[in-house]
């Protein structure tokens, strides 16, 4: 989702950009932590957070970057929310979400819920939001989330090879959505998918009021939510203020009164945190050591695993040494992940030894990659087995233009060169995405994945499954019948637990075929002020969970 868009666009220190956007991306714990209310907050206390300046909209259907997701998480309530420990979904606006065959889903809503303008939060409110998002010409950022619902294709236009629209969409509503009665929404998918309920907590699935669709432009700036906070004022590019909605009827609401987001063009908000003007911040690299040596600050430090995986992919569609699995093993074994992180980004990345983030999402497991450790001797042996690297040739490593990532991949290239003797060059390209989809890479390339919803399936199927046995997936030309079968088995599984197990089998297929080399996972960390307590980072989004926070006014 859009956090990836942010990664692509911002082209600067990824974690810092994300980290600077305080806010909760996921959900809250239903019972635990004594979180609901807590009693530790002042009712008139203000939480002061930073927001990236490129937040352009607060329309749920169009919000897909970490920042507007954070804001909307307290302005809107979704059908499900996610447990902060396990990231597993639990029903929130939904009374129940059930299916016999994983294809037709019946969603029952809780009674008597309203939007902040008094309109009812009913099945129609969800249907109208989803139809709007799924309608191709609306060009909503979250459009693709509705691909699984029947009738999606009829809502997209046809284009010729030059990308010119040749045919308007045949339908403007999803045929798979049926409002049975005000409290019941029936959703028919294109095929079985056990993880459907897991997706429903995402921003793109929030309901919208009719008044919102009547004036979408106004609603994008001043949303009409159904959550515990309402947007009071948004001076785009400067600041955003939300205050507690007094008529909120569900249980997960913080007890502090106001949230003030200050928009920042870059990541330069550390001095503001030090001066006491912000409640959450991350120091820039140059200030990292000072912060780490400050015992007072260390008491207000929170850290958690991130969900973003950076990996090295190969153009398997192209002839080259990389079509041999031994060669890919050699590359992986030659990368000193921990050493590189310690030298370049201490504490900001962790070595990856799996394709799904361990503990971050259901089904994530550490150590599924058996060739992800640093073993120069085994690397040399594998390279020999693969027939070596062609003499006199340089290996090109393609990646986007991003200072931090270029430094990281230079270190990776150095590691490979030192341990395998393969000379390399980096090719930081401004049109990385263009070239990747055009299969224009002639060597290994950097890739990154941030999941759309917390389920191990999302690290696997969208990236590796294509159903195209001949060409493989677009990005790197991988295809595996076993992999696709395991995914399909998971999609059809009776329960989510079973599905997760099947998806784990799919990851095991990757571990055998080794099409890509996991490199690092992101890490989320924050320093927080003396005004806030009960700081919990969402393991999925990496953001502080605003609904759990307790805030008191400064001394």
């Amino acid at each position, binding site marked *: 989702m859009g956090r990836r868009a942010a990664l692509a666009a911002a082209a600067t220190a990824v974690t810092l950009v994300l980290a600077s956007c305080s806010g909760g991306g996921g959900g809250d714990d239903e019972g635990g932590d004594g979180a609901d209310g807590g009693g530790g907050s002042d009712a008139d206390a203000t939480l002061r957070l930073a927001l990236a300046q490129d937040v352009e909209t607060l329309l749920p259907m169009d919000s897909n970057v970490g920042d507007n997701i954070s804001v909307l998480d307290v302005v809107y309530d979704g059908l499900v929310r996610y447990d902060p420990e396990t990231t597993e979904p639990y029903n929130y606006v939904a009374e129940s979400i059930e299916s016999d065959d994983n294809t037709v889903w019946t969603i029952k809503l809780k009674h008597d819920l309203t939007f902040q303008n008094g309109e009812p939060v009913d099945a129609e409110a969800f249907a109208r939001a989803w139809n709007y998002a799924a309608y191709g010409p*609306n060009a909503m950022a979250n459009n693709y989330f509705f691909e699984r619902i029947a009738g999606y294709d009829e809502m997209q236009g046809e284009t010729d090879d030059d990308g010119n629209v040749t045919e308007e969409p045949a339908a403007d509503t999803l045929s798979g959505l049926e409002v049975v009665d005000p409290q019941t929404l029936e959703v028919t998918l294109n095929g079985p998918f056990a993880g459907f309920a897991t997706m429903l907590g995402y921003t793109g699935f929030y309901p919208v009021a009719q008044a919102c669709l009547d004036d979408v432009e106004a609603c994008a700036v001043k949303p009409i939510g159904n959550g515990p906070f309402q947007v009071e004022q948004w001076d785009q590019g400067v600041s955003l203020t939300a205050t507690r909605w007094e008529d909120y009827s569900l249980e997960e609401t913080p007890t502090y009164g106001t949230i003030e987001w200050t928009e920042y063009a870059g990541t330069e908000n550390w001095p503001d945190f030090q001066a006491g003007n912000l409640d959450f911040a991350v120091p820039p690299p140059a200030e990292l050591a000072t912060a780490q040596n400050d015992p007072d600050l260390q008491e207000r430090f929170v850290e958690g695993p991130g969900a973003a995986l950076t990996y090295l992919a190969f153009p398997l569609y192209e002839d080259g040494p990389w079509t041999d699995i031994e060669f890919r093993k050699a590359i992986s074994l030659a990368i000193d992940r921990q050493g590189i992180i310690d030298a370049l980004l201490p504490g900001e990345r962790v070595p990856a030894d799996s394709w799904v983030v361990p503990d971050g999402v259901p089904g994530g497991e550490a150590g599924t990659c058996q060739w992800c450790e640093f073993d120069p001797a085994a690397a040399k042996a594998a390279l020999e087995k693969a027939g070596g690297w062609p003499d006199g040739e340089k290996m090109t490593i393609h990646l986007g233009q991003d200072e931090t990532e270029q430094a990281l991949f230079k270190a990776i290239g150095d590691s490979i060169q030192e341990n395998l003797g393969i000379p390399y060059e980096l090719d930081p390209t401004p049109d990385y*995405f263009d070239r990747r989809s055009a299969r224009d890479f002639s060597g290994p390339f950097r890739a990154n994945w941030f999941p759309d919803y917390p389920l191990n399936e999302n690290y696997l199927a969208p990236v590796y499954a294509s159903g195209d046995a001949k060409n493989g997936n677009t990005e790197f030309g991988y295809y595996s019948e076993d992999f696709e079968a395991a995914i399909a088995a998971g999609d059809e599984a009776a329960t989510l637990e079973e599905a997760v197990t099947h998806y784990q089998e799919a990851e095991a297929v990757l571990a055998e075929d080794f099409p890509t080399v996991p490199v690092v996972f992101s890490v989320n960390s924050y320093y927080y002020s003396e005004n806030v307590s009960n700081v919990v980072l969402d393991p999925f989004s990496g953001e502080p969970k605003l609904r759990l926070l307790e805030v008191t006014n400064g001394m």
Partner: protein
Amino acid sequence: MGRYILRRSLLGVATLLLVMFVLHLLTTFAIQINGNPALAFFGERVPTAAQLAAVETRFGLDDPCYDQTGNPCLGPFVERLGAYAQGDFGTNLRGREVTDIVATAAPNTLKLFLVVTIVWFLLGMGLGTVAARWRGRSADHGIRLTSVLIDAFPIFVLLLVYRYVFAVPLNAWATETFGADSLPALWFRPSFDDDHSWATLLVPGILLGLAGSAAFIRLVRASQLESYAGDHVRTARSRGLHERHVVLHHVMRNSAVPVVTAVGLTFTEALAGAVITEGMMNIYGMGGVLWEAVRGTDVALVLGVVTILAAVTVAVMLVVDIAYAALDPRIRYA
């Protein structure tokens, strides 16, 4: 006089059109070579052709010429000119009105520039006058050395040191001494605060002014030295006028003319400094907006902002030209 103004105005409009066209070409080629910004909308995801087409339409980049490298895209340019002529400056990629963005950003930049200009004048005229008056003495040497030192500290170094070394302790001290909402506490706030724009713009403005002041100090000094050697000064002195009167009325006033011109010319340089200052101090201003727009290949925003900026610059130049001619009778309206 009327014909002079007319001619200058026409020249101004022609300059404006040229600027717009060159910018249009640059941004168009940027899109053709670097790839459509619509693609960045999808991030790591590979969009379907229909999804991409829909976003291109939304971004106003659906004209096929944007896919043809080398095509100058005259059609969209003419369309845009027509819209501008009707006062419609369009929207940025995500649909926010360009005029709305400028209306929010421009006042902050103007306030910053006002502080900068005052600092320039105070430092330039003050130190330059002293250096010229006591030429060759230790004051002169000291001031010349200072101006070299100022040049050695670019604005980003000044701001970086200020923000990370001085601002936080100064702010803490002021908060403790005078209270959190006191003026001194606001002066030393590490970042801009929209609710207290003047107070929080003061220090960044002074620093930006300081960084650009060296050239002014030297310019004032040089131009006053010239005046001291001028016939009118010798005449004034020979009439027995008091030295202070000579300096104030015959030296400083005359040396002000080239300084006024220089302020106009340095305006563009200040904009470059403003990009850095605004970025580092988190001021929502024109420099920062333009910077982000260029980075995001936001054609409509880049063109809209620059057109408005260029129009203002051309207008200011025009006024300066006319005022200049009015002030100095030796400049003919020929």
